[in-house]
């Protein structure tokens, strides 16, 4: 029976150009589950971003559904929605076209940002709460709402298209005021029009059908239904009206000079206690009772008479419905908290300056900078990224040691390493004073060019300055470090390499030893062997050194191209001008564009876009198929994925060997990934220690290894194996080469708990939905034994009284297996050896790595393997300590699948594993998934370290279905 899908995959068996609207209707109509809700939300916002995108020139040849799927993936990563992420990847796989598999995003760590849009009508200059939505006004006089479902709807236009300076809403009616006394309303038939065309209106309030406006020249205007505009009021405060509110028909006004007064129904001023001096910014709360303000030239925010907190350059204040206050000022941080003395406000790190802001719900804040609207979900806590606020990335470098990761340098000189999964360990951060211009991998660390000099940096230590002064470029060349120092290029230790006519802009080295230097005047010097070639590349930007020459980017907006020097010769005509371009080993290029990030390659008429995302980027770096792009403070990691043969086969092959320097794992046909021997040895030792602490440490160490493999190619391989079906389980086939390296204290690498591999901070993939299982595969050339329709089960045990509970457990197994076609060979567990044949054999006995102890006698593994294999079994379960070696041996003897125990096992807790596994296998479930389910049961017994004990060996090439099960005869 098919289980209902968690998320519909409408492309399965159909076209990937799916009907998104129909899908959204389906999601709304079906059961309201969190993943479905998430998917609907993401699809809507992706639609919004797609509508905002202005990338038709660059991406016009890419189908829209591909771009949409890519956007869904980007958002799922940013918002940390794994189910939607998997769904988007499957959709992208279904397109059959290359795509950029977003792996990580720094935004996922400052993830209080829930959504963003660009205003189509100019810069946002005012914003107000409008029920659950926000309304905003723009410099071009548009008044629009931004709804909770992500839509932007134009509501009104200011007379003469003048700029909106303030907005107010009572939940239904909207009033916008602006330059030259202009006013407009929305959703208000018979509402007010502009009072008089004079000074700018800079403040407005609406309540109970009345409107009150304040002007730049201090005048106050009131409008009431039926009565219209009263004569403008002046004469109380002076200067601009800073804030205005309406409460119970009375308007309260704050002027720039610090005066405060109320204006009653009869248009009489009622003076209030003035503030302590001129005011730069002020805001009334929703009830019009509490006034937050800042005195001119000061940084302290006061609410009524109390000082609440200080904010540098404060110029924005906003109240939430539940009485919290937000302040914005210089820099990119917004402070939010209850306005009480002693409050330490929560700090929100925005990616850009905030021009206007408003609370739209108890936990929702809307901000805008220029035309960019952002909604923040303040209920998401602890996800602020304090690393980069107001400090954009200015350089990105990639390293052989962690191809999916990167080091970034920032405008303030910060250096941050992102590991392959995007994480940024604190020890991998440092600062090189002033802005970073270039980061290049070198040895175990990095070379850094900054405005304050050239540096060498090994994460974990402080950067070491090689030379002071403005440095635009560094490179590793012929084993030496070279850096730019104004107009010269120097060796770090041996003097000058060359001198240019102007300040050196860039230095690049090719693998063959060619060095290319470019100065800011465009002169290009190519040093290849003994030959020095000088050419003028003009406005071209150096992209890369190549053997004997250089590649440059010609930035002619009309005809951008990549040129090869000396020459120049056209290498590739480009369809659009990138901000930055880096070559890939495939001969393609990764480009950072104002409206996206793309991989481009040669096509019949110039360049073609191979894969692209609409996420803008300024900088990009690449290693193999891994890309890291940055735009402002945001950093994102991608893999270039090319669906092809093998897509969706559900299998990932990992070949594991060892040498003196650790384990070498090859994922699929990818590059080898080296695992740290120290971590492996510690894992081995911890996993053999039964204390809870050791088991916990072992799990963590396995996470470190899992991350290394994930960024070393396992991630893309799992995507490939899962293919177009987001719910397809994936099996990792582990091929372990026998090896007993010295660093593992004489143990075999098969003794390591590979079953614990997982991504750090994530649960074991065995238990995910869909699961990712780990199977140890063993080659065996003999044909598999035929699967009987009614398999027989034989249970053997040692006579040790300690194993008496097995007899009781057997009753459980009998009961559970009644629902299958099993035929019991004996009515109870028998002593080993038993001469009966059987398709399934359980052996309960004390074992050690070299053999099995039965009735006080140690039987060598070879002998036991021969005995058991002779029974013709397809599936064997060995319940004995350290029986994994025997398990492997049995598969080499022709058994299809064998479960053994890597270390100690306790018969009192292992029963659920044995019975669950046997039942599922007999029912025809693939053995790896049966093992996953049984392992879960074992873990749920509370047995410490349970997941690191049983191992599953399988004949190479096996589908994993050991018996056909009922109904599949």
């Amino acid at each position: 029976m098919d289980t209902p899908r968690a998320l519909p995959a409408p492309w399965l068996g159909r076209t990937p150009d799916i009907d998104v609207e129909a899908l959204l209707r389906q999601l709304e109509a079906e059961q309201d589950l969190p993943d479905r809700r998430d998917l609907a939300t993401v699809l809507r916002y992706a639609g919004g971003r797609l509508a905002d995108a202005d990338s038709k020139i660059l991406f016009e040849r890419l189908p829209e559904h591909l771009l949409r799927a890519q956007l869904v993936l980007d958002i799922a990563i940013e918002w940390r929605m794994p189910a939607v992420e998997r769904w988007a990847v499957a959709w992208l796989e279904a397109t059959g076209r290359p795509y950029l598999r977003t792996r990580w995003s720094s935004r996922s760590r400052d993830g209080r940002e829930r959504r963003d849009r660009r205003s189509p009508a100019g810069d946002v200059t005012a914003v107000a709460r409008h029920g659950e939505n926000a309304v905003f006004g723009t410099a071009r006089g548009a008044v629009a709402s931004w709804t909770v479902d992500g839509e932007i709807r134009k509501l009104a236009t200011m007379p003469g298209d003048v700029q909106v300076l303030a907005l107010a809403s009572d939940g239904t009616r909207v009033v916008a005021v602006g330059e030259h006394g202009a006013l407009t309303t929305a959703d208000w038939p018979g509402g007010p029009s502009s009072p008089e065309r004079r000074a700018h209106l800079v403040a407005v309030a609406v309540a109970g059908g009345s409107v009150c406006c304040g002007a730049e020249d201090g005048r106050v205007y009131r409008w009431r239904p039926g009565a219209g505009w009263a004569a403008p009021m002046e004469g109380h405060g002076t200067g601009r009206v800073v804030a205005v509110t309406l409460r119970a028909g009375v308007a309260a006004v704050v002027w720039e000079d610090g005066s405060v007064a109320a204006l009653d129904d009869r248009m009489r001023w009622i003076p209030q206690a003035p503030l302590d001096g001129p005011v730069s910014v002020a805001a009334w709360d929703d009830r019009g009772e509490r006034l937050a303000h800042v005195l001119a030239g000061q940084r302290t925010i006061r609410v009524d008479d109390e000082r609440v907190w200080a904010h540098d350059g404060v110029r924005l204040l906003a109240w939430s419905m539940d009485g919290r206050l937000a302040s914005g000022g210089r820099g990119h941080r917004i402070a939010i908290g209850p306005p009480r003395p002693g409050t330490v406000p929560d700090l929100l790190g925005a990616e850009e300056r905030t021009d206007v802001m408003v609370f739209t719900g108890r936990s929702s804040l809307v901000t805008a900078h220029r035309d960019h609207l952002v909604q923040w979900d303040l209920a998401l806590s602890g996800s602020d990224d304090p690393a980069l606020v107001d400090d954009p990335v200015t350089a990105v470098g990639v390293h052989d040691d962690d191809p999916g990761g990167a080091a970034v340098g920032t405008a303030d000189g910060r250096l941050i390493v992102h590991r392959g999964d995007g994480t940024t360990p604190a020890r991998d951060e440092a600062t090189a004073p002033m802005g970073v211009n270039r980061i290049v991998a070198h040895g175990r660390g990095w070379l850094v060019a900054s405005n304050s000099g050239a540096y060498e940096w090994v994460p974990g230590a402080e950067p070491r300055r090689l030379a002071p002064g403005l440095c635009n470029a560094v490179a590793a060349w012929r084993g030496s470090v070279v850096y730019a120092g104004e107009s010269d290029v120097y060796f770090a230790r041996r003097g000058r390499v060359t001198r240019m006519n102007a300040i050196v802009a860039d230095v690049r080295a090719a693998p063959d030893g060619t060095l290319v230097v470019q100065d800011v005047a465009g002169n290009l010097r190519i040093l290849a062997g003994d030959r020095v070639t000088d050419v003028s590349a003009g406005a071209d930007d150096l992209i890369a050194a190549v053997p004997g020459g250089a590649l440059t980017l010609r930035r002619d907006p009309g005809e951008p191209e990549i040129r090869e020097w000396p020459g120049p010769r056209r290498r590739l005509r480009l369809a659009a001008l990138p901000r930055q371009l880096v070559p890939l080993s495939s001969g393609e290029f990764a480009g950072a564009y104002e409206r996206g990030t793309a991989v481009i390659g040669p096509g019949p008429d110039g360049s073609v876009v191979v894969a692209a995302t609409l996420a803008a980027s300024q900088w990009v770096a690449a290693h193999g198929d891994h890309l890291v792009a940055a735009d402002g403070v945001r950093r994102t990691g991608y893999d270039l994925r090319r669906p092809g043969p093998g897509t969706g086969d559900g299998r990932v092959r990992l070949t594991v060997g060892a040498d003196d320097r650790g384990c070498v794992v090859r994922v699929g046909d990818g590059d080898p990934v080296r695992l740290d021997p120290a971590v492996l040895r510690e894992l081995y030792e911890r996993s053999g220690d039964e204390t809870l602490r050791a088991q916990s440490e072992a799990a963590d160490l396995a996470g470190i290894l899992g991350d290394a493999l994930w960024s070393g190619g396992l991630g893309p391989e799992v995507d490939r194996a899962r293919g177009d079906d987001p719910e397809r389980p994936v099996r990792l086939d582990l091929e372990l080469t026998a090896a007993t390296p010295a660093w593992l204290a004489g143990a075999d690498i098969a003794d390591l708990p590979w079953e614990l591999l997982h991504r750090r901070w994530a649960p074991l993939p065995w238990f995910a939905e869909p699961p990712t299982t780990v199977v140890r595969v063993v080659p065996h050339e003999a044909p598999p034994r035929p699967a009987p329709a009614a398999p027989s089960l034989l249970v053997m045990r040692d006579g040790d009284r300690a194993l008496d509970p097995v007899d009781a457990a057997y009753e459980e197994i009998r009961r559970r297996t009644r629902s299958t076609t099993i035929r019991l060979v004996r009515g109870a567990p028998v002593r080993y050896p038993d001469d009966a044949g059987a398709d399934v054999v359980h052996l309960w006995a004390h074992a050690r790595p070299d053999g099995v102890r039965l009735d006080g006698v140690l039987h060598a593994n070879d002998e036991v393997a021969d005995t058991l294999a002779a029974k013709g079994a397809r599936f064997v379960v060995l319940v004995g300590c350290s029986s994994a070696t025997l398990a492997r041996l049995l598969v080499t003897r022709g058994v299809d699948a064998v479960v053994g125990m890597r270390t100690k096992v306790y018969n009192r807790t292992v029963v659920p594993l044995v019975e669950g596994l046997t039942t599922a296998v007999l029912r025809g479930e693939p053995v790896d998934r049966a093992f996953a389910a049984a392992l879960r049961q074992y873990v749920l017994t509370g047995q410490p370290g349970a997941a690191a004990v049983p191992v599953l060996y399988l004949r190479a090439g096996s589908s994993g279905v050991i018996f056909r099960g009922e109904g599949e005869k």
Partner: protein
Amino acid sequence: MTEHLTFHESFDSTRCTADDSAQHPNLTQGQIEAVVSLLLGRSLSVNNTYGLDSRTFLELADVVLGTRAEVLAATEDPGAREELSAARPFVLHRFRQPTFLSACIDQFRRTRDRYGTGLFRLSAWSRINEDTTARDELAGLLERIENGAAARDVPGWLVEIDPALGRRFETVMRLDSFFDLPGADREARIPQIPEQGYVEHVLAVADGDGARYRAIAASHGCPAELADAVLSGVRERVAEAGVEGVRRAWVHDFVAATDPDDPALFARQQLQEFQDTLYNAVMADSAYAQFDYMSSTPRTDGRDELKHVNALALGIVRDRLRRDGDAAEDAERVADRMGGLLSAASVLPHVPRNSLATVFRAYWELQADEDRLPVWRASTRQLHQILGAPARSDSRLRTAWAAHLRLLTDMLPDIVDADDIELRLATDDAGGYVQNQRLGPLGPDELDRSISSGEHLAKDFLRDLARPAR
């Protein structure tokens, strides 16, 4: 010799005279624009006329030299003192005069008695404009000072006329000493294109159906009706007095003679703005400026016409220069022109406000800082090398520009505010003004909010203007 010179139209002596209030926005405009140029590593090119008679420049010089002296007095390190002494925030360009003082003497002596309507109209010294005796007395005193026959003390009679004139005399004396420093004073050149050359060009591009003239106006954001009004004013004057008659002196007289209630006044003021910009382009050329910053007269009301007319004049100058540069006919405006806006400080409230004195003190402290100065200097050198390259790279310029702005915010965090494309600097003088200087176009909304706009009429940029349209 100073390599990079900027000429500021806002130093124009006619913009703010001694009769204007101390709150006149032009005073702040000239000063704040000057700071921006200095922070970009440029020196201010001053002609001898403005050196004596621009109130804006004299008040700026007073602050610059005063704060320099303060920082110099507080600096003990010999290297830093040397750097402070070597800095040349201004460079004087004398036109056919051997020294600064001789130029001043000549200007004072060009009185109405001797020259009739061709007199040198004093602006910063307007209280003695018609006072031949006082002018002669001052000229004589300066002559004696130049010959070493008199002390540099402020004459009491001048202070009695107006205490502000005493202060101006002091500033002239300090400037004279400053211009004596090596590299601070040189001869101006004969401009390559005279004022009438630009007027002829206006007529030439407006010939026929005027499409080319309107295209120039449109490409610089000047509404067609405004451009037509300027053209009609020029044509009317040409009909009266020929091309030679369209001169700055004429248009100033024309405006001065117009009744304040005459509805034609504003149109004539626009014509004056247009002609002033052409005139200052000539002055800038004469003063060897590489970066001529031509900004409109600050508006005092909600009208934006002067900004548009200033932009129109820039378009005419550019088009005329392009003609000499063998540029393609269909060259169009590039997106990366460097321009700026002067606005009320309240428009950008997040920008820190300081007094001009605080800003210049910070500038001089930077010049005296052995750690910061080399980096700042290398960054400005890089910017100028990129600008001066035979084929300029826009991306390199943008990157270097962003890096320089970041450097400034690092070095002067309480003085400037910047992002990757825009430098912002605010002063709390005269009610508070903010200048934002940008690499790239100015938006119509921003233009609307500002009280003055300006653009660099830089020769280095002009090369790019010759880029064919695509």
